[in-house]
């Protein structure tokens, strides 16, 4: 069983994804299915951001950019499909972005989430203890 994390779910999350994550003990905050702007408090609460945007359009990229600017260590996981190559490349260049293709098993997704958060925790610990090393 994966540890429970707070997942900011962006894009057009499909129902079973939310259910699967919640069943795995994660707290899910749906992000911008309807809204244009992300709520800063929600982003701060999140351990990881999972983006399931089908078309990975320009708007999605803009949101990712602003998240990356303000929260550089928030891990982002893209669940790609019908991806536009140029936009996907742009998104990956933001750094610390994991790209996974759908369909994906809930088990694998949860593993990836756990991995990403562990990595972030190491990084935070390091920043705190020895900022010069980062």
């Amino acid at each position, binding site marked *: 069983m994966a540890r429970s994390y707070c997942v900011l779910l962006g894009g057009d999350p*499909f*129902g079973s994804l939310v259910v699967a994550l919640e069943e795995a003990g994660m707290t899910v905050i749906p992000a911008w299915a309807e809204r244009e702007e992300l709520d800063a408090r929600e982003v701060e609460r999140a351990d990881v951001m999972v983006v399931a945007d089908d078309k990975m359009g320009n708007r999605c990229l803009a949101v990712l950019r602003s998240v990356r600017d303000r929260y550089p260590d928030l891990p982002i996981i893209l669940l*790609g499909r019908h991806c536009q*190559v140029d936009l*996907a490349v742009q998104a*990956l260049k933001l750094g610390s972005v994991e790209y996974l293709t759908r369909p994906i098993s809930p088990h694998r997704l949860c593993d990836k989430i756990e991995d990403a958060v562990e*990595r972030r925790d190491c990084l935070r610990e390091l920043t705190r*203890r020895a900022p010069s*090393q980062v």
Partner: protein
Amino acid sequence: MKRWLSKLWSWLLGFAEIIGLREDRTSDNVALLSLFKLRYHEFRDLLTANNDLLETIVDLEVLLRGDKMFGLALLKTKAVQAYASTRRMVESLQVISDNHYPSLVDALERVEPCLIDLLGEKDTARAEDWIVPLTAADRTFTDRVGNKMANLAEIHNRLDLPTPNGFCITAAASRYLIEAADVVEVIDARLGLAEPGGYEEASQAIRDAIFKAPVPGDLAAALLAAYDDLGYGKDPTPRVALRSSSVSEDTQASFAGQYATVLNVVRANILDAYREVVASFFTPTAIFYRRHLGLPDDEIDMGVGCVVMVDALASGVAFSRDPVEVERDHVVIHAVWGLGPTLADGKADPDVYLVERTGRNPHIEVRAARKLTELVGDPEGTVHEAPVPEAAQDCPCLEPVEIRTLAKWVAQLEDHFGSPQDVEWALDRRRRLFLLQSRPIRRVLPPETLDMPPRIDKQLLVQGGVIASPGVGAGPAVHMRTGDDLSTFPKGGVLVAPFSSPEFVQIMDRAAAVVTDTGSAIGHMASLAREFQVPTLLGTGRATRLIPEGEVVTVDAVWGRVFRGHAWELLTDVPVINAFMKGQPEYEVLEKLADCIIPLNLTDTRSPAFSPQNCRTLHDIARFVHERSFAEMFGIGMLIDDFRSEAVLLDIFLPIDLYIIDLGGAINAPVGSRKVKRSQITSYPLSRLVTGMLDPRLPRYGPRHLDTRGFASLMMRQALRNPYQDRTFQDPSYALASDRYLNFTARVGYHFSALDTYCGQSVGKNYITFRFAGGAADVVRRSRRARAIAEILEALGFRVELKMDRVDARLTKREHDQIGDTLEMMGRMFQFTRQMDVAMSSDTSVATLRDAFLDGNYALDPHFVAPTAGEPTSAGK
């Protein structure tokens, strides 16, 4: 006594810290521990990403054969996957190496434009094109109308052979149907995360949703208008057949029988029949099949053909070659009365006609069957079974002239499509023949021999292994290792090597086949073998021992076998690859895409050209990163100065103080433990290494009996004495470990050894790197010991470099247990070779020591009798 002194010393150090004479290291060490964890984390990701990239390359290579259908959507997914994996590797190496390779980012950016130019948003779907008349299409339309209809159009328009009239409803139309019906949400909800077993329910829900939603008005209008255009002359409202024509169907993946065909449809039922065919994209078996092939579920590539029903007197199938014995030069025709489906279902016994393929007036063998029932369509648009009139029951359905015509046509189709064909035909009541579809023959083997390799009357030398590049090749066996002079490899030789290496690229244009003891299908060499189309069998385990040098052998890299001599049966029956995708626009994109991903230009790690500046493809970048990551991880142990505050001491009887730094899952002990027992080690590699070190056969105390026969000198024995006597104020040794990773650094006495290993379930990620240097004796003796160690490691399968008293060795791509066994041997070796340098008085002692170790004679007993092969002591040999 010394033990007490050691304890006193560490207590004094601690006291010095308290009174401020010595700096407290604890806080630094906590930060360093985070750094280790982060680097290990990145390294693990790097190995995974490397595997992912190599798998994507294999996928692209399979597409490059050109015998499997694909569209641009698949290429895009593959391109992004490859890029994402490589990018991940570069980012990870940057973290591991403390940003030591900024030019790798440039290398990555050099490849980006190629991917984007090729696959950027150019292929805007011509969404309006829902209908394509049969007369307006040909084979190049596969991506729009599917294989079956594209081929039928080709037959009609390019070969000028008779087919029924009709039109194609494109895959884009089916996607529109699905989207407009809001089925997408159901598909996502049901299949976005579906695991095998849940398909049945998911499939039903999706198909229900499709049937519930009406066909959108504009699509329905276009479809009916196209239908109305079909009617002419005597029959203004013809009955039609709606057939699935998916883009991936009838390619290498047959999808045989997965998708629906609806016969004898009247105008009023066309829209329902259309939905039925589209819905068959989501039958449970079709879903399972696609998952098995790695095709996406949500990329609906289902074209549908609408063709006028032939008012069939008889129908059947024709094979341009016997599907069971393709070698036989016969056309085989099966025929039944009425409509064809009874034949496909295997319900009716058909007439069989065998027609010779040669000569102007070929011989025909007619085997008429008794046909009791036939399938007939009625004007209401349904199909039913009817009895065959008695007079017709035993009559052959076709006249000789019709049989010959049909045989001539299918031979023509085989020529045109480039591979043996499986053709559906019908004969109407005016005795006119029509072709209904043509697709490559899938060999139909009798059930009892299904999946059985052909029997070969030759001595079987090797069986098993991984097929890295399929095919059959024969020639004289040439044994080679990396480092050998590869230019001497003869043209047409069969390379037999202990392990795979990209260095062998140099002989790929000359080799008839390749067999190795170890290696995996996703390695670099496997990739090169496929690029050069050299039949390659890796990981056979024992090929180097079982295949005699110089002997002519046949390598069957289809069934995983090697035979002595020429197995002509295999060498002549090479499967025909129908590269129908070559020449298609998608194939051209694939070739260009492959060019910026696959070619490996960085093959020699020792060459100065092995640098980020020379990386031209994603494969180059990955290779460079992968290679450097070993070196970077290897050095991780060197960062440790005094780490005892954050590590736990392994409480065992060894001449070293071994401290474990847990990176995750290395030990099972309460937080804050200062000591752990051997049984608390949960790190697989560490546990195996320690097991080796503690092998009871390794002498621990006191001198053994002296010998006078000169097998080993007294000095040598001295080295094998009580470990505590060696334990001086030496530096502690550290093991940075996780459940499957170990970085072990030991400075014992005057020598230094370091080992770095990863050992998981995925063969491609596993490796051991090892370095040994130094010693207390003079340089000649030290070098002798280094040579003994080098030779032992070589015998264990390592690739070894020896410089003076320094040994660098690496072992890659072994099974989990093999790595474990090797680590255990290395544990023994550590103990065995300790302080041996002092004793190595002559060059012959190198061989003596090596052989004693490999034989398991750890006590250097002159009366020792080496066990026979296969016993545990020689496991690593």
